[in-house]
């Protein structure tokens, strides 16, 4: 699952393009503008979030998916949490703030396709709970030029959690 090889450098222009995309994406998610967010994805997007089984160091940890979606199921998920009538967990909405940092970009296959590696920290406060909490993880995005723009084709979020501390995950990471 750990697919980080030595990161090949890309041009500053490419780096900036990727950074702009990821910053804009985080802002849209924090604003809960899921329609605009969905437009940043390719039509065959894959979205996977993993958690971790802690095991002895000799064996190494085991990551396992807690979310594994294609465009269809991801759309269902987002339709649910974006519609006040269809969600309980997100009504009242949780407040979120995404910090996407430590960006590294490498060329991936076809020209102008990239793999972006970032650290992700999401602060979240439920509407109903007094205390905020955090999701932390490492994110790997495959970005592809599609319909004229760079879009997210494949996202893997490896959470640094073995037990999710506050119920089940009702936001997009």
């Amino acid at each position, binding site marked *: 699952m750990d697919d980080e090889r030595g990161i090949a450098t890309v041009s500053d222009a490419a780096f900036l393009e990727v950074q702009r995309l990821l910053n804009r994406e985080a802002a849209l998610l924090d604003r809960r503008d899921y329609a605009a967010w969905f437009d940043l994805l390719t039509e065959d997007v894959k979205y996977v979030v993993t958690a971790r089984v802690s095991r*002895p160091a000799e064996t190494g940890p085991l990551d396992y998916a807690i979310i594994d979606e294609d465009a269809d199921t991801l759309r269902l998920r987002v339709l649910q949490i974006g519609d006040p009538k269809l969600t309980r967990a997100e009504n009242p909405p949780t407040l979120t703030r995404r910090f996407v940092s430590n960006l590294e970009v490498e060329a991936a296959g076809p020209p102008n396709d990239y793999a972006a590696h970032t650290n992700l920290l999401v602060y979240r406060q439920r509407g*109903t709970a007094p205390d905020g909490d955090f999701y932390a993880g490492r994110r790997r995005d495959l970005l592809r030029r599609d319909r004229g723009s760079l879009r997210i084709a494949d996202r893997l979020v490896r959470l640094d959690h073995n037990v999710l501390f506050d*119920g089940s995950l009702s936001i997009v990471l």
Partner: protein
Amino acid sequence: MNDVTSIANGDPWVDTANGTVSREIFVSEDVFCLELDRIFHRLWIFLAHETEIPNRGDYVVRTMGRVPVIVVREASGEVRVLLNSCRHRGTKLCRGEAGNARHFVCPYHGWSYALDGGLISTSYDEHLPADMDKADWGLVPAPKVESYKGLVFAAWDPGVSQLRDYLGDIAWYLDTLFWRTPGGMEVLAPPHRWRARANWKIGSLNFIGDGQHVATTHAGPSTLNRLHSKKAGFFVRGGESFQVVTDEGHGCTLTYLAPGMPEGNYLTHPPALRDAYAEVLSARQISMMHHLRVMVGNVFPNLSFIENQVALGEKAVLIRQWQPISGTETEVLSWVLAEREASAEYKDRALKHGFHNFGAGGVFEQDDLELWASATQASDNPIAQRFPFSFHSSLPFDSAPIENARGPGRAYKPSNTEVAQLAFMRRWDAAMQPGD
């Protein structure tokens, strides 16, 4: 501790005559401590599925109430449940969640134990007095460990009945979920784990028979799944539905296919395997499965299960454990299973479908948790505790089981009453009595 049962206002916790249940038992730390004593450190508690530890030395680390245990397949192939605590100074032998071991070595002072728990060496055996018998100082085994159809249970009271007897009539239903094919079922991934700020019993009640919450709580996935399935050309409509209650407070809710959808849902089972069902299931069990859309239930106290499907090819068998942390917090474990003989591609779909709906990011799960947490918080004060929860909609139906043509146990209709929930509460109440 025992005087806790005589609660302040003298009202019973479970008032079966009036169909109400005290809120106190869903928040109180004193009640929680008593539950540990009377239920979790005594009765049969589900721990793991056999396929999580297929090989010798494979182990998973689990908890029974507050007791940390290692569930390990020892050299003989038997499953043992050992207290995860060194006899010397108490250190946990296994500090990860899962692994494979040849033996268990304490990292503190080096005591080592065989997979069956026997003490091999204290590392300083030469300093031991002559009368210390190492055979007395092995890892503490749970006195009762049994498996039923791949489900591993243990109990700390050596006097509990045989597991098969404890399960009673619910075993018939468990068979249809957990042993359909000669190979049985297989866990497809490690259990998802998350914390809920809610009492564990709310989870059990939710699964044993809570037909009333589906339309309200799960308006989101219910609506969206229907749209999604219609687009895919097939939506599995539910028809006749009823609750089943068995002895020991186990129970489940069954929903059959709507008339005019004969066996449509049955088609979502792995095609190549349907014939194999007849090798292990009875004709009556197969007949039930042919018409089944959803089965959801609970084995007392805290093992829940569900098989649910909405669209062709989208189904999964899920196991759920409601592991109590305190009066107001629960750790939830959630496994997805499929038939061992199913194709890799089928298993992959089942896994995705399973946790899309019921995993740590499950679209059903997230709404339940939000509401359970708010119920717990709102009930955790003495004013609210003057006003018990309503289980009224069990009363008119409780004493009138219907003819259940398809399976054992006492069946009740309609399914959106609270008969099974009240049966769970009655069993709980009996377990909490000193003499039970």
